[in-house]
């Protein structure tokens, strides 16, 4: 045991609820300022229209609605952000389901933080979509006139189901702890008592909870797979666009999402361990295990990526090759190759280190790898969406540059996500109290 103190009580877990230092206030204040800026940017967009972004129609009249090129990209960082957050959301069930279904008690310590991540990520994905709509005031049309021929409706259904399932799952697994908090934090007793909803804490009740949770975990796994598959179908079923119409898009996106999610969980686990000195709870073994899973899905992801690239470069259609050339040799080449080599290559190397022996596992370095990987994955999705739209068959290559307003709005999801997450850890324990019991 290197640092921290031997954890025997629940108090150490409850630090996040009880300890509130200056650093916290500064941090939250900064987030609130950023959020205000985000809200202002969004307000500008709502009153002026999507012209405040850098997105444009496939064909524009060149003199107006700049930039001064004829072709623009109708989708940009909002949609990229949407896919990113959906990807992050795959953390929750990936970990929780493994823990519960395969009885991997060792990883129960990170299960809840993963579930909360999902809980926070899904609304951020929804918000990103709302940012992108030309008429957010007509969003209710989706419910009135929604048509199941459209992949977007599949998205709406799957994501909503996933979200509801996650909330129920989280609540059920949290209930015991809530009840406990009612006793431990008398000042908030009424709040927790309300939330616990007559939880008795009997063995039968606990058993029932576990049963339900087990079945829920089982049911949510296919939902999780469906969610990112249908998100991929938004692109993968489009015959019109180069490099999109591909059979492996579903599994490609799902694996990518799992990489995203697991990396995010690692990042969170490492941050909490560092923040609250939970070395004895979130042990090196736990982190190594997560990084092991991360490494393996990353390998699968890279394998699928290579398969995609090879298919195009070998004998791709002209529209596919045009997009591929644009990425490999054209204006996006610096972004593409930096992403590949630095964004994926370096994390891959870091994650491969433990193969050569346990002592080669470096938690801090792996943390860096997990952050880099998620940034790279954000960029990866961007390179899937935008270059294809900028290279429409029949027209010339276009330009897309996101504006400051657009970036501010997109970043709003990160500030909000952080704020929501912080709100949770201030109200509930981020590690299941069962971990320190018995």
């Amino acid at each position, binding site marked *: 045991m290197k640092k921290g103190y031997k954890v025997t009580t629940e108090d150490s877990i409850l630090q996040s609820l009880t300890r509130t230092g200056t650093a916290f206030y500064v941090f939250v204040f900064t987030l609130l300022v950023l959020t205000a800026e985000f809200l202002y940017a969004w307000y500008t967009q709502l009153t002026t229209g999507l012209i405040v972004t850098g997105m444009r129609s496939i064909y524009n*009249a*060149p*003199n*107006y609605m700049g930039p001064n090129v004829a072709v623009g990209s109708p989708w940009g960082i909002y949609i990229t952000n949407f896919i990113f957050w959906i990807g992050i959301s795959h953390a929750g069930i990936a970990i929780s389901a493994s823990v519960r279904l395969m009885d991997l008690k060792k990883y129960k310590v990170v299960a809840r933080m993963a579930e909360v991540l999902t809980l926070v990520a899904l609304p951020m994905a929804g918000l990103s979509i709302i940012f992108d709509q030309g008429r957010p005031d007509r969003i209710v049309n989706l419910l009135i006139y929604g048509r199941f021929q459209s992949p977007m409706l599949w998205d709406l259904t799957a994501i909503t189901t996933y979200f509801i399932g996650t909330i129920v799952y989280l609540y059920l697994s949290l209930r015991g702890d809530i009840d406990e908090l009612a006793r431990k934090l008398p000042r908030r007793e009424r709040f927790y008592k309300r939330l616990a909803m007559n939880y008795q804490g009997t063995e039968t009740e606990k058993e029932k909870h576990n049963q339900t949770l087990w079945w829920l975990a089982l049911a949510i796994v296919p939902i999780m797979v469906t969610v990112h598959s249908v998100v991929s179908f938004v692109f993968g079923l489009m015959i019109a666009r180069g490099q999109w119409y591909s059979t492996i898009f579903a599994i490609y996106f799902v694996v990518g999402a799992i990489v995203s999610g697991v990396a995010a969980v690692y990042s969170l686990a490492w941050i909490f361990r560092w923040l609250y000195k939970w070395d004895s709870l979130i042990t090196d073994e736990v982190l190594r295990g997560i990084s092991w899973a991360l490494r393996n899905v990353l390998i699968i992801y890279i394998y699928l990526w290579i398969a995609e690239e090879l298919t195009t470069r070998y004998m791709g259609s002209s529209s596919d090759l045009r997009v591929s050339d644009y990425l490999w040799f054209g204006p996006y080449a610096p972004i593409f190759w930096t992403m590949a080599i630095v964004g994926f290559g370096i994390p891959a190397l870091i994650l491969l280190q433990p193969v050569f022996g346990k002592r080669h596992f470096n938690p801090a370095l792996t943390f860096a790898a997990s952050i880099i990987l998620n940034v790279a994955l954000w960029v990866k999705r961007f390179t899937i969406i935008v270059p294809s739209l900028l290279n429409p068959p029949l027209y010339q290559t276009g330009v897309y540059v996101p504006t400051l307003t657009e970036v501010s709005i997109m970043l709003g999801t990160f500030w909000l996500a952080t704020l929501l997450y912080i709100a949770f850890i201030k109200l509930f324990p981020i590690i299941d109290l069962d971990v320190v019991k018995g």
Partner: protein
Amino acid sequence: MTSITAADFGNPDFPARICLRGLSQLQYVYHPDRLKYPLQSVGPRGSGQWQQISWEEATTIIANKFAETAQKYGPTSVYIAPYTGSLPVLNGLIGAGYRFASVIGASAGDFEGDNEGDSASPCGSNEVLGNFDGHELSDLRNSRMIILWGNNLAETDIPDMRFVLDAKDGTISSAGETAPNATGPGAKVVAIDPRYTATATLADEWYPIRPGTDGALALSMIYVIINENLHNTSYILNYTVGPFLVRQDTNMFLREKDLAGGTSTKYMVYDANTKSVVPYDQSGTAPALTGSFTAKGISLKPAFQLLTELVNQYPPSTAETITGIAASDIQSLAEEFAARSPAAIKAGFGGISHWYYGDLTYRAMITLSAICGYIGVHGGGVTTYNGALLDAALDLGDWLNPDKLAYTYLPPIQFCTAVLEGKPFQVKAAWFPIDNFVNQQGDSNRTISAMQALDFVVVSDVFMTPTAQYADIVLPVATQYEREDLLAGGNYFLQYMPKIIDPLWESKTDLDMFGEVAQKMGQAKYFDKSPEDYLNLILSGLPSGLTLDTLKSKGVVPLADQDYGTSSFQSITHPYVPYYQQKFPTTSGRIEFYSESLVQYNMPLPLYKEPIEASPTNPLYQKYPLVFISSHTKFRTHTQWDNLPWLQEVIQKPFLEINPTDAQARGINDGDMVTVFNDRGSIQVVARVTNGIRPGVVNSYQGHWNNGAFPTATVNNLTHQKINPAQSVVFLFQSNTAYFDVLVDVKKS
């Protein structure tokens, strides 16, 4: 006004005569930048400082100033310049401005005359055929071959391009007679143009000729045709001056009195039967077309012989060196032209007339058509502008010269000299209605000096044009949709133009404006009638008795139709074909490819001469090795519609078309800002590197207004005002602006 649609001409030959410019007119009428009130300049001329004044004040000032100037320098020191900004009868090119000029004794341009670049071809036509006229373009359907010579019909005369397409597809005319030899589909269409234009894409063959050398090509084609005996001998004998003997001592035609004494000025021919020189109208003769003869010690040659000697200097191999078109191509082009009877030549004002020696070129082209017997037949002819005679046909004498009062003719290109040098007389004040003179006259810097040197300038227009910037008084004009008028021009139809809406803001029609000033100058009686009265006056010249009411009810009437036509060119055939009866208003009554009036300039025949400036033989070429042409774009009509948003959306910015070879040599890439310059001025535009233009030639569309984004882009900063003295033999077309005869160089800005 809420929508626009094509007018119904009541004739299946003329469907959908509308284009993108016509469809954008709502933006013109309701443009936020329209002039609303009369303005008076309150700063130095060109400074852009104005104050609003009333019409009463404005017209009073103008009347006083004009009277004052006329008093000091004579009435012709006031110059009125209505121009092609608007073509209708009362308020346009042939309208109230000229009437006003006549009644106050001022000087003026002329509606039929010098059209700034459009005079060389009419001049040449007058010299050979006696006037300037053209086929109704639906007649192209009767052609088996169409040469689009220096003419980008697909952009500059969009509704008429359909007839070329019909000819290609083999659609025979659905009205009137057809040419006897017109059979089956597929007229061959040839485009001769240094640029690969939209027209060229629809042609069967494209010849990228060196600009300004079209005359050499025509002469070479004549050489091939004569050499291979493909010319129409009987036509030449009967309808041209071919057999007329020319005196080799004076270079004039031999007249009967030269040999026999007396007064008979009959032309003489050499009769092969009797081997003697006889009058041309003697019966039973077999006139010689070639050879040399003597009579009374005078050496004589038939005009055709002289023509042959001229073209012998231009075999295809020689023409290849001059024009850049392969000798074999010239050969086959000529052979096909002669074989595919009838073949038509549709010439452009731009490619042919915007040159110093454009008259020579046009004469050569007419000669080419004549020796094949294609003049005055369906499917043939050399046409630049159809509708040319229409204005004359309307017999506008009483309208433009009431009580026989007349303005003094001063071609616009001579305006600057008149102002700056007082030749041919001093001009001190001017009124520019519907004329963006500063933008469109050659050599803008000289034009601006002239504007600055004037005592008083009035401009009436719809917008604050670059010309209006130099005015002392600016008057807002009502557009053609805000007044009643008649339109004649561009085709052989007479169109009634109803008033659709009332004049917006305080704008007035030309007629009203000139009327108010005239009234203040004591000439009210010439402007005291209503527009309807004047229209009736104009129509009264038609023998058909067409009244305004009939015209109103029909909207459009074919003026070349016997029912409505005038005496001056009552059409005898449909579609309209000039010279159908083979009668030519020349001195000899025949096609004068040999013209006596030009003997004094040593060019009785259509010689080929290198362009006055844009030639590699010019020493200036060492400094400025690129020929600068300024063609017309489909997105404007000269300078009009430059500020219409829809059209701006597509044309974007002013650019210079340049071949990759020339661009590379100067380190210029597509999209770079470049400076085009010569000794007269410069422009700054965006480079458009294209393979669709000959190396050694650059092009920038004319008509752009200098504005914020592109403050120096008016092509006329580079052009000149050189006048060809030989054109003086035709009074109305005595001078021409050779817009394309220009050398420049280009560098990256």
